[in-house]
Structures are given as structure tokens and as C-alpha cells.
């Protein structure tokens, strides 16, 4: 199962502990994570299920390319980091 980590900045709004979930894509993994933790979904995804504008996701060190359908492939050993997209100072 893929490991999923959330930015610590999210924790004060909604609990998002490190977790694990199965799935072939990052979207499938997150769907399982949010099925177990529904309040967290809206903090990461927008109304249409796309990644929020100023959020980013890394899979094994690479930023995902499909922010709309979340179709980027993951493996059973992937590490998925859900972070804020920060730039500048």
C-alpha cells in the first residue's frame, strides 16, 4: 500500500494523520483515504474533485502532472506527500 503524508499545516484545521491506502493512481489512493476521513477531502480537493489550486502532491519525489483527474500512477511502495504549493519567501 502507498504511504500518504499530509502537510503539518493542515493538522490544525482537520486531522490528517499519516496513513496507507491501496490504489493504482493517486486519485484512487486519496479516494480511499478520504472515505475514511471525509472532512479532510474538501481541504485538499475542490468541488469537482480536482487538486486545489495552491496545493501540490508529490509521488516518490515527483510532482503529479494530472491535477484534474489525479491519474498519476502509484505503486504499492510509493510515498505520497500532500503539500501546499509554496513559492517565494
Amino acid at each position, binding site marked *: 500500500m502507498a504511504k500518504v503524508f499530509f502537510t503539518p499545516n*493542515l493538522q490544525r484545521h482537520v486531522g490528517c494523520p499519516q496513513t496507507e491506502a491501496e490504489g493504482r493512481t493517486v486519485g484512487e489512493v486519496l479516494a480511499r483515504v478520504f472515505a475514511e476521513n471525509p472532512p479532510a477531502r*474538501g*481541504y485538499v480537493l475542490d*468541488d*469537482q474533485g*480536482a487538486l*486545489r489550486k*495552491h*496545493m501540490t502532491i508529490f509521488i516518490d519525489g515527483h510532482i503529479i502532472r494530472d491535477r484534474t483527474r489525479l491519474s498519476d500512477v502509484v505503486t504499492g511502495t510509493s510515498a505520497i506527500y500532500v503539500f501546499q*504549493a509554496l513559492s517565494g519567501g
Partner: protein
Amino acid sequence: MSDTLLVSTRKGLFTLGRSGTRWQIIKVDFLGDNVSLTLTDPRDGRCYAALDHGHFGVKLHRSTASGGWEEIAAPAYPAKPEGVEENDMWGRPLAWSTARIWALQAAGKDQPGVLWCGTLPGGLFRSADHGASWQLVRSLWDHPKRKQWMGGGADLPGLHSVCIDPGSSQRIWIAVSTGGVWFTNDGGESWEQRGEGMRADHVPPELTHDPIAQDVHCLAQCPAAPERFWVQHHNGIFISSDAARTFSEITGVKPSVFGFPVVVHPRDPDTAWFVPEIKDEKRIPCDGKLVVTRTRNGGKSFEILSNGLPQSHAYDVVYRHALALDETGNRLAFGSTTGGLWVGEDQGNIWSCVTHTLPPVYAVRFI
């Protein structure tokens, strides 16, 4: 008179109370978070706070009986149907996603539990269960003319004003920046454009008087005379005496007819207040003097109220939800982008600064 204020700011929600003749901060909620608007439901006293977490999106919280807050559902757009392509005014795909909560209004006692919420990018939402769930009002969102709405001060169209007839919660007026004034007589089942007579001078001549091209900054209805509306418009000040069917422009108001907020006296439809600024590319008080303007005769004349307000090098901007009037019509308050908060007594004849060190103020409401 109301002795409690809710002040929504860029960095938290501040509750202020009046003790003797002094106002002071008595409670701080959501410190550090962007609070865009609050609503206190007069039917049951529950308070709603709209938050915009930026990265994490728009959220809605409701007060609890124990004095705390609980997160409730935020208005969310339904799934965009496959094949539906819609671009915003910049040619980018329009996201069916709540970008800001810009209006919160409780229905009347004839519809307990019903709330209305206006948003960017223009959707109107209705809740029938005190905000536990929200439904997009499809009759307005699917209206073919809705796609003609444009962004005003923001990139996206914003539905910022919801006025509900005190005599019937089925009769609702909304206003959009930019999309003019709309009305429903059947609780949102159907909508018609209103607002003939308003004038937009920032669009081509053939659109100048088109009701849908009007950049209404704020729409205010007199509860005791619900046919009377006041509009602070991008172009100036307008008044209607026929339920927003037609408006007349009021010109020559000193120091300026430009601004964002307007409030109207709850029982005297001829009395209204505005906060003028230099129009419109500068958006700062005229000559660095922060003033409020007031008419008591339906716009025939205006007074400039400045007693207690800074009269030199003041650069406070007062947003559309940041001017409030209490239920007596005698006490006002407003907050500014530079963190100032003033309370006005005697219908604004005497102002006093409560603080000038708040975060930027987005909304001020009396409880």
C-alpha cells in the same frame, strides 16, 4: 441599541462589546485565519462564520450552544456535467468551485432554518437545515444570461447581496458584481433581471444601460418599505422605489459618489449612509479625509459626517460588507482595510475610533 459587534478580518474574527462608553475586544476566534463574512441569524441567535483558508479552500463554521464553533458544510458546486465547457471572462475554464463566500442571509420566520449564501464565481446556494447542507440554486446558475456575468473587483463574478422581503421569504433580490440585480417571486424557482436605469460608463455604449452590465457594489433594502432599494454602484449611487424594477441616479454627491457599502435605515427608507472614495482607479478617501455621507431625504441632499473621523492622510478603504447599522438605525460601525474600526452614534453625527490596529477588515456586523 446593539452593544456587540462582529468584525471579520484577514486574520481572525473579533467580537467587540460596549462597556460604559467604551468598546473593547472581548473575544477572538479563528486567529490567524481569513474570515470573510459572518451572519447572526436573528431567528435563533446562531452565528455563521465564513473562512477562506487559501490553500485549503472556503469553509463555513457555526456557533455552538457552548460558545464554541463547529465546522459545517460549505456550499459546494455539483459535478460539472461531461461536455459542458464554460470559460470565464479571461478565456480560462470556469471552475465550478466555491472561491469565496460573499453573502450570507437568513430567511424570515416563515421559513425557519432557511439560509442563503452568495459566492464567487456567482452561484447562489440555499440551505433548509441551518447550514448543515447546501444546494446550488440551479434556476439561477443555469439561466442562460448568467454566463454574461463578469468579474468586478475580482476575476470571477461575485454574488454579494441577498435581500429578502420581510413580508415573504419567497421574494428575494440578489446583486452581482458584475451582473446587476435579479429577483425571484417564488423562492428561487425562477428569476428575472431587474435594475433598469442604472448606468455603467466603463463598458461600450451599447451596453451602458444594459441591466446585466451593471457593477452593483452593494444592494440595500429598507425592511419597513421593501419596495425601496439603494445601490452603491461602480458608477455612483442609485435609488429605486418600485422593488428594483427601475432606478434613478443620484448625482453631485460630495465628496464622491464612488464607494462600496450602503446601509439604509430600518424604518426610514429615505435615510441611507455611504462611505465615499476617489473613483475608481485610486480607491482611497478624497483628500485623505475619511468621511461618511448621509441622506435623510431620499437623496435630494447629503451631509458629510466627519466628527471623530481622521481628516488628514487617512487611506482607509471600507469594503461593501464593512459598514453596519444596528436595528435601531441610530448606531453605525465600520472597519477599514488598514485595520481601523469606528463606531458612530446619533446616526453618524459623532464617531469614535475603537482601534486602528486590527487586521484588514472585511465585514462588520452588529449582533
